[in-house]
């Protein structure tokens, strides 16, 4: 029977392994929107990793890192999508 800490550690390992396909899609994506979608997924998975790591280490400030990563990922994705759509950022 595994404890809750070991379950969280296994979940962290699975999340880090799940970063590999999205990184492959960022590097070798056929089109530009592929890379944008994959980098959005990378940002969200990194936010999940930081949230779980903050919970496991019981550090409150790492949860702020998760919040900031999700915000930056959303703003960057919206800006690049807007640039692809209309040709200008604002």
């Amino acid at each position, binding site marked *: 029977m595994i404890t809750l800490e070991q379950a969280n550690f296994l979940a962290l390992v699975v999340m880090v392994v799940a970063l590999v396909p999205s990184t492959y899609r960022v590097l070798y994506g056929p089109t530009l929107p592929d890379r944008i979608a994959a980098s959005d997924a990378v940002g*969200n998975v990194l936010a999940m990793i930081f949230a779980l790591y903050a919970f496991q280490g019981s550090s409150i400030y790492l949860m702020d890192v998760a919040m900031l990563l999700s915000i930056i990922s959303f703003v960057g994705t919206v800006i690049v999508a807007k640039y692809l759509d209309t040709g200008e950022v604002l």
Partner: protein
Amino acid sequence: MDVISTVLDIISVVLLVIGLIFLCLGMLGLLRLPDVYNRLHATTKVATLGALGVLLSIIIQEGYTPMGVKAFTVAIFILLTAPISGHMIGKAAYRHGVKLCEGTCLDEYGPSLGPQSVPKKKK
């Protein structure tokens, strides 16, 4: 009291496993699906349901503490913004000129868009 703690642990681990299942299926879809629009389906599920499962397990474990409140804020923010970013990527990809894949049998957005409604790029 001990029974309640054990039940909360079980619910938390079940939510964590649900989030990880959505994460793994989304990454498999991102790797294997044939098209930008199909891959957007997979990655948006990763962002909403996967992150929501993991953060809900943290919220159930922590309760009404500062870390629990921060995890709740992150969960609400991701739940609100992930569909917006997915929709914007899809619309930008279509209007950027990315072709649909071979097996597509219906495209309702292209005829409804019309040739005149595409904004001209400023030079």
